[in-house]
């Protein structure tokens, strides 16, 4: 546990000193511009449009930053040979992977919290009211970002950082469309297609189980049981990804 915390603290420090939090400033500037533009075209629906657009932006920014930083985390340690120093000390490979993930998760919590709070403020300024569900949605988007980070770290243990980042983003996009994949099985045209669809549906994280935007803008009533179940599923999925990453990384020699 000590080793995991030490690596997590070091990773947090590394990412903060890499000025990742500047993303929040970029996001804030983007939101101000978008707010002015949406106000000019939305005919009284500014608040709703702002919330909808803002959630997509939070998710997009979060995933892109999380994936690209996660893709280089493990590779950089191997490439710069700092692993020699780490693994000659009482630090297990699993502790290392968990520590790298936890450190980046800490940084991304600040990034996501900053963006969610700013979105809430902008939505409130534009329409005079903002749904408190925005902040709940922010937490759930954070969980999705964590899952995509874990997937990317897993890929980065056996591929290059660029490929790991591309695969991570592919998994995120596929996860958003996973309900469509499942609907293919209902067509029943081919057993092979059905089998493949189920396989993809099971392998790719399901990011479309809860429609966050619909809840935030008031089109759908929140189903707490579904949200809690989905959250549990995402946590289980990311733990599984980190376990696979550890298994692969244990076989590595330096």
């Amino acid at each position, binding site marked *: 546990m*000590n*080793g995991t*915390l*030490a690596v997590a*603290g*070091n990773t947090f*420090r*590394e990412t903060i*000193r*890499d000025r990742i939090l500047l993303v929040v400033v970029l996001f804030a500037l983007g939101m101000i511009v978008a707010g002015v533009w949406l106000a000019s075209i939305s005919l009284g629906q500014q608040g709703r449009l702002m919330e909808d657009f803002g959630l997509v932006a939070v998710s997009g920014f979060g995933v892109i930053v999380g994936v690209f930083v996660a893709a280089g985390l493990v590779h950089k340690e191997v490439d*710069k*040979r*700092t*692993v*020699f*120093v*780490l*693994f*000659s*000390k*009482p*630090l297990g490979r699993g502790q290392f992977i968990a520590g790298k993930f936890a450190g980046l998760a800490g940084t991304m919590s600040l990034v996501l919290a900053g963006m969610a709070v700013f979105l809430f403020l902008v939505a409130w300024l534009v329409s005079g009211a903002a749904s408190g569900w925005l902040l709940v949605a922010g937490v759930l988007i954070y969980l999705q970002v964590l899952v995509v980070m874990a997937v990317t770290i897993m890929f980065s243990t056996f591929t290059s950082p660029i490929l790991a980042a591309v695969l991570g983003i592919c998994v995120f996009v596929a996860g958003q469309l996973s309900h469509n994949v499942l609907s293919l099985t209902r067509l029943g045209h081919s057993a092979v297609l059905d089998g493949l669809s189920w396989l993809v549906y099971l392998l790719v994280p399901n990011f479309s189980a809860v429609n966050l935007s619909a809840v935030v803008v008031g089109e759908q009533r929140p189903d707490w049981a579904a949200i809690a179940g989905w959250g549990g599923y995402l946590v289980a999925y990311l733990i599984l990804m980190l376990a696979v990453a550890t298994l692969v990384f244990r076989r590595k*020699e*330096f």
Partner: protein
Amino acid sequence: MTGPGTDPALTGAGRPKPDRMETASQTIAGQNMAEPAHESSTEAGPTPAGRPPAVAIHGLRKTLITGFRRRRVEILRGVDLTVGDGEVFGLLGPNGAGKTTTLKVALGLMRPSAGSVSLGVDGAGEIGYLPENPYFYDYLTGRELLRFCARLFALPDDVREERVERALDQVGLADAGGKQLRKYSKGMLQRIGIAQALINDPRLVFLDEPMTGLDPVGRLEVKRIIEQLGADGRTVVFNSHILSDVAELCSRIGIMGGGVVLWQGKVSEATPSHGDGLEDFFMEIVLGSEAAGELSASSCSTREADS
């Protein structure tokens, strides 16, 4: 792996040596033991009777598979090496001889293809390691790096802070401890590397090319540190190409070439005239083994000094 000792002194003189018969040794064994280890009568220097050697390597082989065509490259071809408890041992050899790979396998950074490595310490908590050409997190200050390394050993807060300050002081970086590592010179990085290797007060220290990149003053400081470690009864194994330093610091040496240990024994046996002839001796062993074809895969053998 168990935790490190709690002795706060980094290199306190007269530090009592724990009885190693009471500690389990750390052993790394290769998967393929079909090929027998070379018969070896390696006799370590000052290891007291009944105590296990600090490092015992038998028949160590390492084969890497490289490239698209999966070519097999034999890096180590049957290394037999014994380092006694409390020795300062120099591992010599030309580039590509297998010195660094031997250390990496001993430290568990690589898996052996065959053979065994046994370390007379109680886990990684009692080992210090300085890699060759070390790179450290350049966004950290020297002090932050040492704190981070100390946390990996789960040292209590008060002990950790004391060790960090002692280590900085010991390598002459007390004034530069607050500076980011990206602003360190190569010599300063080498010294902070030695400091991190000593942060856990190790009983067994591996230093891979510790003098590389150091100016004469830095080199002298590192030599004094190694001398002090030896005087405190710690076991030091280091690789170096600077033969005069090896002759000055080591009680025993091993000369590697082509993935085997060509010769090991006391420095005095290699250099009868007080260290003047180590270079000649080294060349004689390395060139002699090449001429005799000892570096071919079929005839790797270990020559022992008459002791």
